[in-house]
C-alpha cells in the first residue's frame, strides 16, 4: 500500500444515498482476475444519464467523491474500491459507509471519511466551484472558505495509511502468537481441525 496523508482537489458532488456496490461496479465487471482496469465500469449505470457528475468537465479527474448515507452497501466485492481507485478517486466523504466497503477502501489506501449530513451539504456546495482538502494527520476536511470539519478514524487504520503498512507483513510478525493460539485450541477444541476429526 502506498502511504497517503492528504488529498486535495476537486470533488464529485454525487450526494446520493445508499450507493450500492452494484452501482459502483456492476457484476459483469467482476469476471476479471486482475485488480486493474475497472475504472471503465465504475458507476456505469449512473453514467448513462446525461449531465451526470462523472462526465461533467467541471469535475474531470476529481480525487474526491461526496456521497450520501450508507455508501458502498451490498456486496463484499473489493472491485468497488479498485474501480474507484482506477477512476482516480482517492477519498470518499459520506455520513456513513457499509462496514465491508470501508474495510476494502482502507486496504487500498482509499480514504473513507465520515462527516455529518450538515457538513456533507456544505461540501456539496463548495465542490461546485472550489477544491476540498482532506488532511489525515490532523483528521480535518477544510475548504478555501474557512470551513473546518474534524473526522474520526480508527488509530490502527490511520497508522497503516500514513505509513503505507503491508498489513500481511505486519501480521506475520505475530506468527508465534498465532501458533500458540493454534496449539491451545487444538487441545481444547480438537474438532476445529478437520483432519483430526
Amino acid at each position, binding site marked *: 500500500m502506498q502511504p497517503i496523508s492528504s488529498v486535495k482537489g476537486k470533488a464529485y458532488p454525487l450526494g446520493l444515498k445508499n450507493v450500492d456496490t452494484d452501482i459502483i461496479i456492476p457484476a459483469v465487471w467482476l469476471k476479471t482476475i486482475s485488480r486493474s482496469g475497472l475504472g471503465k465500469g465504475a458507476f456505469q449505470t449512473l453514467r448513462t444519464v446525461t449531465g451526470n457528475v462523472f462526465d461533467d468537465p467541471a469535475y474531470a479527474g476529481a480525487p474526491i467523491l461526496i456521497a450520501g448515507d450508507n455508501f458502498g452497501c451490498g456486496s463484499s466485492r473489493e472491485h468497488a474500491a479498485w474501480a474507484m481507485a482506477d477512476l482516480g478517486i482517492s477519498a470518499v466523504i459520506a455520513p456513513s459507509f457499509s462496514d465491508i466497503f470501508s474495510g476494502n477502501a482502507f*486496504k487500498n489506501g482509499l480514504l473513507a471519511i465520515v462527516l455529518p449530513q450538515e457538513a456533507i451539504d456544505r461540501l456539496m456546495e463548495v465542490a461546485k466551484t472550489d477544491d476540498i482538502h482532506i488532511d489525515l494527520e490532523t483528521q480535518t476536511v477544510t475548504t478555501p472558505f474557512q470551513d473546518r470539519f474534524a473526522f474520526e478514524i480508527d488509530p490502527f487504520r490511520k497508522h497503516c495509511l500514513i505509513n503505507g503498512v503491508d498489513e500481511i507483513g505486519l501480521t506475520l510478525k505475530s506468527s508465534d502468537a498465532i501458533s500458540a493460539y493454534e496449539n491451545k485450541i487444538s487441545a481444547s477444541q480438537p474438532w476445529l481441525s478437520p483432519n483430526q*476429526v
Partner: protein
Amino acid sequence: MSAPQTLYEKIWNAHVVEQRDDGTCLIFIDRHLVHEVTSPQAFEGLRVAGRRVRRPDLTLAVPDHNLPTTARLDANGNNIPIADPESAQQLEALERNAPEFGIDYIDATDVKQGIVHVVGPEQGFSLPGTTIVCGDSHTACHGGLGALAFGIGTSEVEHVLATQTLQLSQSKSMEVRVEGELGPGVSAKDVVLHITGVLGASGGTGHVIEYTGSVIRALSIEGRLTISNMAIEHGARAGLVAPDDVTFAYLKGRPMAPKGAQWDTAVAYWRSLATDAGAVYDKVVTINAADIAPSVTWGTSPEDVLPITGVVPDPSSFADPSKQAAAQKSLDYMGLTPGMPMTDISVENIFIGSCTNSRIEDLRAAAAVLKGRKKADNIKWAIVVPGSGLVKQMAEAEGLDRIFINAGLEWREPGCSACLGMNPDKVPAGERCASTSNRNFVGRQGPGARTHLVSPAMAAAAAVTGKLTDVRALIN
C-alpha cells in the same frame, strides 16, 4: 464470576490471538470459504509475495457465482465447457489455485457442489462458535448456526489465506427480538424482509445482530440461515442465532461435524455460548410477529418493504428529503405509480434460488403452492435452482422436481444463478421478476431488470397467477 456476556462477546473473546494498544484485535479465523470471483487476485498476491496458505485444512473452495445452471455434463459424461471466456477463465483460476495451495476443491460436477453458503452448513464445515469468513457479503448466513460469520474483501481473503487471522475492531451488539407466532403463509424470508424494512438498509451498520425471541427459536436451521443471510441487507456486519437442540440435530452426522466423544464435548461447549442473563446489548429492537405479513419489496433498496396487502408508496410520504428523492428514482426505475396495489403488479419472471432461499425447506414451500397448478401464461421464464447438488438430489427423491416441471418451471443445476446477473441467468431489461434472492438493487439481476424480493411460497404464488400475489389466498 465474570460479567454477563452476549453470544457475540463470547465468540469474539474466544478468538483473540493478540490485542493491540489501540484496541484492534488479531482474530483467529476457524473456517474460510473460497469461491472463484473474489479469490484470483488474492492467490496472485500470495504468489507475488512468495507466501503460502497457512491453514489449507481450514479452507474450502467451491465455484458458484459464474457457473451456468444448465447441464454440466453431456450425454457421454464429458464436461460441457463454459461458453463465456471470462467466466471460464475465472473457474480455471480457482481449479488451478486450489491444488497449488493445497486447498480442498469441490468440482462443478461434484454432487457436493453448490452455493458456498449452502455447502458450508450442509457439510458440517460451518459450526457453532466458530469464526467463518468468505469473500462474499452473504457469509453472515452461517450465523444461523451460531457462528460469527461475515463477508470480507479480496485483500482480507489474502490476509486470511496467509495468516488465518484478521485485524479487526469489535463491533457493537444489537438484539433483534421477534416474539409471538407467525401466521399462515409467513416464512423466515418475510421475517427478515420485515426486519430490514423496520431497521432500514443501514440500521445495523457497525453492529453484529443477535436474532432472538420465540419466533427465531421456533424456526428450523434453514429458516435461521435465511434470516442471518440477510443481516447485511440491514447493514449488520454479521447475524447470529444462539445454537440450541435444533442446531445440534441439524449438524449431527454431517461429514465434517465432530464425531464420537468429540461430538459430546463440542455440544457442551456450544451450549455454553448462549447470551448470559443480564448481558447488555448496545441496542435492542423488538418486533411483534403479528405485524409480519407475507412481504414484498417495491423499490431498489432491500429496505423498501411492504406487506403484500400494501400499495406503492408516494415518495412525498417519506419524512427524509433524501429518501423522497431516492423513492422517486426507485419508482421511475421500477415503472410503478404511487397508490397502486402491490397485488396489481404483473411479473414475467420467477426466480426460486440463491443463498437466501435454495435449501430443501424453501423448495418444499414453493412446491406446496405449485402442486397440481400451472404457471400463468404471462410468465416467460421461471426457474428453480437448488442450492447444492445434495439439495437437488433430496428434492428429486421427494418428487419436488416433477411438481416444478409439471407446473411449467425449469429445474436447474446448483449455483448463484439469477441472484446477481453474472452468469447466463439474467432478467431482461424492463421486465419484472418475483425473486427469492436478497437484493433488489438497480441492475442486480441484469441491466434494467426490476426485482421484487419475496419468499419461496410467494414466488410460487406469483408464478401461478402471473402477478404479485398474497400466497394466503392459495393455501387456505
